[in-house]
């Protein structure tokens, strides 16, 4: 039963509950007009203590497309946080007005504070480098819709595997499905942390290999998930400059990939995917953004207990 649930971490929902969301998302994708009034009269509060155009737009579009309405702020300066109000007090107040709250905050665990204070469901839309569960929901829905299954896939993940939270969550989430194999492509300095390698992959006997070069492994992949090397994660500018251009996927490299491999990316990209890949039908990253909206539509309907 997802009605009334918070979504704070990618693994808060069981495989079955995730399945419920994906089933509803598929119905919405097939017939979006049918759901145009599913959340009539409902109000979403978007509390963005740090800017995030993409995630905020995705949630707002999701709510508006379901007939609901949106209030909120898009940076802490335009909220009462600038006056020194605590997260608890802000959420307790917002819960008096809205039916559901979406929250992004630079501090890790902030949405949990919000969820404890508010008596309405709270969705974590990113808390620092910690969790971003609706990105995981988006990634899984994209794979399911594009590949038809979340099982028996060889998934390549390339780029910053050390700091990228979406990557850690994706590995954890996909590890719950059968027959998934990972190929982890990164420089030595940006390999997955121990808690992912030992705590998830080895512990659950998930097959994986760690490699340094992208092109040789491309032919075996069903999915290639590219990530951006994020400047803000580095203390040293030199390290960032040295590592940022290590992997660039371009049309020439795509010739080595399977005809039905898909390329995913959480966006925004910098230069890790050349624009000459955009016209390749295997480039799924903009479709992925659209699936993100559908995933959020299904999520909002489920936690608000809307009739299907």
């Amino acid at each position, binding site marked *: 039963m997802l009605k009334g649930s918070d979504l704070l971490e990618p693994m808060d929902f069981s495989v079955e509950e995730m399945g419920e969301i994906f089933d509803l998302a598929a119905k919405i994708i097939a017939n979006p007009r049918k759901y145009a009034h599913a959340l009539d009269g409902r109000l979403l509060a978007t509390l963005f203590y740090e800017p995030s155009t993409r995630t905020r737009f995705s949630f707002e579009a999701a709510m508006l497309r379901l007939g609901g309405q949106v209030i909120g702020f898009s940076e802490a300066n335009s909220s009462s946080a600038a006056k020194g109000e605590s997260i608890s007090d802000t959420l307790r107040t917002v819960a008096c007005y809205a039916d559901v709250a979406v929250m992004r905050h*630079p501090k*890790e*665990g*902030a949405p949990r504070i919000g969820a404890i204070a508010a008596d309405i469901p709270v969705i974590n839309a990113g808390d620092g480098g*910690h969790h971003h569960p609706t990105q995981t929901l988006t990634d899984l829905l994209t794979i399911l819709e594009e590949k038809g299954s979340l099982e028996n896939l060889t998934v390549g993940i390339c780029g910053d595997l050390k700091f990228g939270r979406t990557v850690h969550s994706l590995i954890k989430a996909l590890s719950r499905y059968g027959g998934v194999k990972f190929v982890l492509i990164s420089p030595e300095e940006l390999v997955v942390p121990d808690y992912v390698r030992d705590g998830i992959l080895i512990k659950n006997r998930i097959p994986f290999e760690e490699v340094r070069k992208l092109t040789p492994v491309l032919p075996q992949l069903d999915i290639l998930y590219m990530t951006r090397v994020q400047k803000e994660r580095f203390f040293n500018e030199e390290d960032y400059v040295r590592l940022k251009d290590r992997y660039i996927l371009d049309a020439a490299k795509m010739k080595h990939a399977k005809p039905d491999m898909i390329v995913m990316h959480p966006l925004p990209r910098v230069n890790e995917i050349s624009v000459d890949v955009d016209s390749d039908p295997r480039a799924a990253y903009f479709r992925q953004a659209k699936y993100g909206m559908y995933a959020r539509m299904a999520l909002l309907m489920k936690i608000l207990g809307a009739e299907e």
Partner: protein
Amino acid sequence: MLVVNSIERGIVIDHITAGVGAKILSYLNIDTSNHTVAFLMNAESTLLGRKDVIKIKDVLDLDLSELGLLDPNATVNIIENHKVVRKIKLAIPEKVVDIIHCKNPRCVTSIEPNAPHIFHLVDSDRRVYRCEYCDDMVSMEKDGLNELIHKKHQPSK
């Protein structure tokens, strides 16, 4: 051989790992209380080789979870009429609230003044705890107690 008289009524914290006794005195604010306290350091122990012992006169209640966190090997004896009426073997607590403070500067507890600091035990052998909010791990063995444990405010006199 140093001899310390028995107490008529109170608490004896025995089998404290040698060297931890002073920390217990400090973190539980026993060192600044008005109670009569006997503190033995590096006493001979057949079980541990060396141990610390704390005797507190006329006190019968103590935060056992806090004590279990500081030294899960210690035992607590409740004394009435010079006799041990109850012997408590401490256990490492599964959940501790407002004792360990999260040292992750990115954790929300660094900016939310009234949020309770909650930690969950994830590895009892190494005494590793996880922050409820940011999932940061702390080891009570490795990480310095001084940094982690939040000393309780003393009640105003």
